[in-house]
Structure formats: C-alpha cells, structure tokens
C-alpha cells in the first residue's frame, strides 16, 4: 500500500498546498453532517426561531423522545434485525458459489456470473411492486425475513463478486496440497480456506450490511408497522404542531452511527469492495 510515493510526484511548489485539497473536501463533507448534529441538540424553538451555529441551549430531549418511544426505537431494532439476517443469508450462500466461480469452469458459468451482476444493477423501483405482490402471496408482508430476502436481490450478487475477487487471489496449490494431505472438501473449506479469506468475508459482510442499511424503497414497500425500518419511520415526523425538526435530526444522527463505527474496520478495503473485489 504505502510504497512511499512522496519521493517524486509532488513538484516542489505543490507539496505545501496539496493538503489543502483533501482538507477542503472533508470540510465540505462534514458541514452538512455537522448541521444535522447541531440541530439534534437544539430545541425546536431554537431551530425555527433563531439562527445559531451551535446549540446555545443544548438539550437531549430529541434523543430522549427516540429512546423512550417504542414506535421510534423499534425502528432501529427492525432495521438491525433484517440487515443482520440479510448479511448472514447473503454471505453464507455466496461462499460456496464464489468458490465454484473462482476454481472451476462449468456449463454456463459466464452467463450465470453476468446474470448475477444484472441483479446488482437492477433498479429497485422496478422490483418494488412485484415484490409487494410476491410477498403478499406468501403472507410475508411486514416481516423481517421478507425484507431480508428481498435485499438478497442485490446483496447476494455483490457478495459473490466480492468473494470471488478475494478467492482468486488465493493460489490453487493450497487446495491441492490440502487434498493430498487427506482433507475432505468440507473440512478443508471450513478449517483452511475460510480463515485464508477471512478479510474477504469481512468485506463482503460489511458491504451487504451497508447496502441493506441504506436501502429504503424496498424496505418501505414491504413493511407496514411491525417490521418498519427506522429510515421509513423518519419520513413521518410531521405532527399537529408542524415538523418536529429536532427529533428528525436526532433520528438521522443515530442512523449514521452504525456505519461510522464499522467503517473504521474496513477502511483499507472499501475501494476493493466498491470495485466488486477487483482492484
């Protein structure tokens, strides 16, 4: 990674200014987020009444509303339940498939691989209505498993692609040596292979988690009350007294936190994941 590129690329004049570009960019990224955090600690009167760059009268009331009202905090629980279900399903079915794609050639493999990709690229808007009808027919509307299965549409292909990318980096000789040593395939796969691609599994799981977490359209279509994700609950903060901006901001801040925590662990692999395991 760090092949010490400081030696040449920056011409003498550029060195002193080069920090400015990422700094300005990060400032641009953080400003809207800061504004949301700022709002979440203000009272509604301060938000609508005065204009202040920081909360003059900091309050935790907005967060208290969310943590004491089940219709709010259950949204977080619902989101986490279906996201975790989806991640587990997606990664566990993708593992053997990715192994097959990275090690063997078989009838129709390339077509199949391409077909998987088209599902990752499919617009969720196309699937919203048929999903609703399909899961209605199975009586699964408003359950966590419905959303988890529906998100497999784009997460399984993603997991297969990412894992295949990582697996192709493992030399085939390792498989062969293990067979010579008398390992059966399942034992080899669990005991030797999975530890070898542990980072790949982590990255695939992270991306499944992330794309399931940020998706709203399908999750909202398939749920009504019991499994409603937090993202959908947020769209209804209009009360009789007008918009409850403070609570909306607090809810938004709380949706950013899970991503901000996990991102640290995969910071060096994010690019690889977005390139579907191919950088």
């Amino acid at each position, binding site marked *: 990674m*760090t*092949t010490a*590129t400081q*030696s*040449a*690329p*920056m011409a003498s004049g550029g060195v002193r200014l080069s920090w400015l570009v*990422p700094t300005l*960019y990060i400032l641009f*990224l953080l*400003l*809207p*987020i800061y*504004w949301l955090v700022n709002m979440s600690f203000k009272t509604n009167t301060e938000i609508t009444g005065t204009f202040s760059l920081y909360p003059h009268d900091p309050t935790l009331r907005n967060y208290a509303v969310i943590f004491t009202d089940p219709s709010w905090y259950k949204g977080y629980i619902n989101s986490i339940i279906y996201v975790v279900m989806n991640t587990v399903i997606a990664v566990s079915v993708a593992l*053997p*498939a990715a*192994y*097959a794609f990275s*090690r*063997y*050639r*078989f*009838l129709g493999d390339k077509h*199949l*691989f*391409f077909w*998987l*990709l088209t*599902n990752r*690229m*499919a*617009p*969720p*808007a*196309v699937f919203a*209505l048929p999903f609703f009808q*399909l899961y209605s027919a199975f009586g699964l509307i408003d359950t966590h498993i419905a959303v988890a299965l*529906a998100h497999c*549409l784009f997460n399984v292909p993603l997991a*297969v692609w990412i894992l295949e990318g990582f697996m192709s980096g493992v030399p*085939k000789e390792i498989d062969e040596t293990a067979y010579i040593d008398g390992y059966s395939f399942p034992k080899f796969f669990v005991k030797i292979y999975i530890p070898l691609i542990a980072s790949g599994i982590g990255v695939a799981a992270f991306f499944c988690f*992330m794309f399931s*977490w*940020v*998706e*709203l*359209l399908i999750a909202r279509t398939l749920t009504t009350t019991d499994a409603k994700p937090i*993202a959908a609950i*947020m769209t209804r903060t209009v009360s009789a007294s007008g918009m409850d901006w403070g609570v909306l901001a607090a809810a*938004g801040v709380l949706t*950013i936190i899970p*991503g901000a925590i996990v*991102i640290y662990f995969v*910071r060096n692999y*994010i690019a*690889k994941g977005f*390139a*579907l395991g*191919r*950088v």
Partner: protein
Amino acid sequence: MQKTWNNKAWFMVLPVLVLVAFSAVIPLMTVVNYSVQDTFGNNAFFWAGTDWFTDVLQSDRFWDALQRNLLFSGIILAIEIPLGILIALNMPKKGLGVPVCLVLMALPLLIPWNVVGTIWQVFGRVDIGLLGYTMAALGIQYNYVNNVFDAWVTLIVMDIWHWTSLVVLLCYAGLASIPDAYYQAAKIDGASRWAVFRYIQLPKMKRVLLIAFLLRFMDSFMIYTEPFVITGGGPGNATTFLSIDLVKTAIGQFDLGPAAALSLIYFLIILLLSWIFYTVMTNSDAQT
C-alpha cells in the same frame, strides 16, 4: 488462474441460484405478465399485446424523464470524476492522515439514502438551513422548492457530496498500486508533474476509473430516494427521474400495465449497461 472443467460446481452455485431466482426471476415474470395485459379490476385481465410498450415509448412523460436522467448522470459524471482524481492525487500517502482521510471521506457513503436526502433538505432550507440561510444573507435568491434551477443545483451538489468519495477511494487504491520505481525513473528523466500524471498515474488508474465511471453512471441512473425526499420530483416535474415516475405510476396510481412496460424498458437499458460493465471488467481481468 487455470480453472478445471467441473460441472459438479453447479451444486455449489445452486443455493445462490434458488435464492436469486426467488427474488429476481419470479418478480420479473410478474412484471412481464402485467406488461402485456389490461385489467378493469376484479382480477379480470385481458390480453393487451404490446399496447403498453407503444404507449410508454410514445409518451412525452417517458422521454422527458429519460432525458432528465441522462442530463443528471452526465453532469454529475463530468464533475465527480475529475474532482475525485484531483482529490486522490492530493491525498496524504502515509502517516496518520491516511486512515483519517479514508474514514471521513467514506462517511457519506454509509448514510441511509433518505437521511442523505433529509440532511440536504434541512441544509438547504432558507429558514433553518446553513446553506439556505447563508445564501439568503449573501442576497442570492435560492429556493429549491420553487425554482427549477435551484432544485437541480441542490440535487447535483448533494450527489457530489454523497458519491465523489467513491471515485476518490477507487483512484486512491489505483494510485497506491504504482511501484515507487516508476516515480524514481520519472525523476531521473526530469519528467514534469503533468507528464508523471499523464504517462504514469493516469494509465495505472484507467481500470479503476472505468469501474468508477460505470458504477456512478448506473447508480445515478437509478436514483430514487434522494430526489424523492428533497424535491419529491418537483417543482412540477422538473426532477422526476425514471424511477420516481415509475413508482408514481405503479404504487401511486396503480397503473400496472404502463408501469410494467416502463419497468421492462428501464430494465433493458440497465441490462445493456451491465453488459458493457461486464465486458470491461472481464477484459481488464484478462489483461492483468
């Protein structure tokens, strides 16, 4: 890598196949089914042939939405790709700055899309948002709710905020793979900063740039949640993109036939794009 021919590998792919077939093929068949039929309610359906497809392809609504989609994708690509390269070139190469930059830059990518919408909706409001308030204080007329131009600018800036980091991260990964020896050789030859970029860095970034370009094009082509939250497709229909139009027709008005036909046309466009993406990916796999 040399792969062995083994049709038993199908058994390992089977779980994926079943799962994706359930969540992709069955729904898609429903769509095909609706796209060739008409109904007057009561679950009575009539064969409509290709009527819906001709309807959709002849409607201004479809072409307008498609044009808006292409315009939007074009503008954000023209800004995000060069900006992403510029930032990646100026990223710190080692030290504490690297993880800090990576984590902070990746932050917008992990925010739920409707929260991204909410953040910008609030940020741009003239009464309570920092951006809107500053604009008003500077005496610039800015209102993304009523003004078409302002709505577009807000959406574009929002998308740049949301996704430029993807381009930066990919370019950064591409740049990090360049061996130090390349730069040393360039230094000995007395190559200019531009020559280093043009003949060393850009060719090495070609592959990741292609990926970034295609991913950004496809994802911006399917954009739904953010404009839905910020502008709701307005003012008027000024920011009604294909997917917003589709959801309005399918779930809002419950016009199954036209919605299904529109879905299939939309899906075919995506299929074509995916094919280009796949060809590019597998070709560059073969090269490296």
